[in-house]
């Protein structure tokens, strides 16, 4: 370490200034995270900050749910659907959960095929992931419009405590925004894979980094499903 700085001072190499300097200074984290490219480290740090955003939302939800003196709406009934004459509790959310988990599975395999340099399978799996993600957002739109029709508003609802609406729209809305952004992100990366953009450099880290983001979206849903819908 000390030898390295001596070398630098000995040779009198001044680090680059401006934006390039900013970029190079920050990307020196590759010294800390060995065998982790800076792009991946940065994605992890972004996801860490996102963890705190969703963590704060869920803690806020916990606080308003604990402090309200009104009855909290029974999510099992609020999100029930009647399919073919059968009244099934929470079914839409269960389907959404399975769709998102499946998209995570296809994404994990897409990363693997990217490292095998199998471009067509990798891109196909990524498109499948994006389509499943779009299905998830579609079901969320259905869920939102159903609840809005039933009179659920951020300031009140016919089922019980008013805070139910505000936390519901905030938490699922923010998550849905992440899924929508992820669908766009995955589509862009999949097109780049198909076009062979990564083939020139031989570096398929971009697929893994996109995968990290997507798995995180799934991870957040695990917590939302447990705390908001099941609790």
């Amino acid at each position, binding site marked *: 370490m000390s030898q390295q700085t001596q070398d630098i001072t000995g040779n009198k190499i001044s680090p680059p200034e401006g934006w390039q300097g900013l970029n190079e200074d920050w990307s020196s984290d590759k010294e800390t995270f060995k065998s982790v490219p800076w792009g991946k480290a940065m994605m*992890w740090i972004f*996801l860490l900050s996102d963890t705190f955003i969703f963590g704060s939302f869920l*803690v806020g939800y916990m606080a308003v749910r604990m402090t309200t003196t009104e009855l909290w709406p029974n999510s099992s009934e609020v999100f029930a659907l009647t399919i073919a004459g059968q009244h099934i509790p929470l079914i839409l959310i269960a389907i959404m959960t399975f769709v998102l*988990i*499946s998209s*995570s*599975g296809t994404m994990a395999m897409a990363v693997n095929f990217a490292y095998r340099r199998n471009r067509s399978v990798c891109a196909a799996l990524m498109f499948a992931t994006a389509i499943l993600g779009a299905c998830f957002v579609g079901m969320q739109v259905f869920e939102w419009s159903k609840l809005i029709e039933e009179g659920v508003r951020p300031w009140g609802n016919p089922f019980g405590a008013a805070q139910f609406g505000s936390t519901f729209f905030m938490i699922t809305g923010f998550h849905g925004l992440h899924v929508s952004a992820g669908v766009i992100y995955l589509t862009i990366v999949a097109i780049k894979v198909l076009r062979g953009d990564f083939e020139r450099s031989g570096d398929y880290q971009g697929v893994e980094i996109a995968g990290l983001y997507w798995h995180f979206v799934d991870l957040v849903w695990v917590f939302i499903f*447990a705390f908001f819908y*099941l609790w």
Partner: protein
Amino acid sequence: MTTQSEQQEHELHPISIYLKIWGMLFVLSALSYMVDYLSFQGYVRWSLILIFMVLKAGLIVSVFMHMQWERLALKAAILVPPLAIFVLVTLMIIEANYIFSSRVTYFGAG
């Protein structure tokens, strides 16, 4: 900096791992849905929800996000800071209990 070959060697796990984890996530999701469907209540419900949640989260982070194959420096940097959320949770539980009791006392609802 690592060479490309090192990186690739480290990422080439057989596809079967992902299929296995996918299957386990499906089973765990089905189980957590059953918690609601069979309408367990009280502490049984809450502990089952938490157990299935932690197992699912663990599988996603360790296998799908490759965390189990990373070096400790990255694991520590990413997995330790979120524990600070538990401090916030504790503080908010204390605060929420106080607010709730004040509301019951002064507004007479309940």
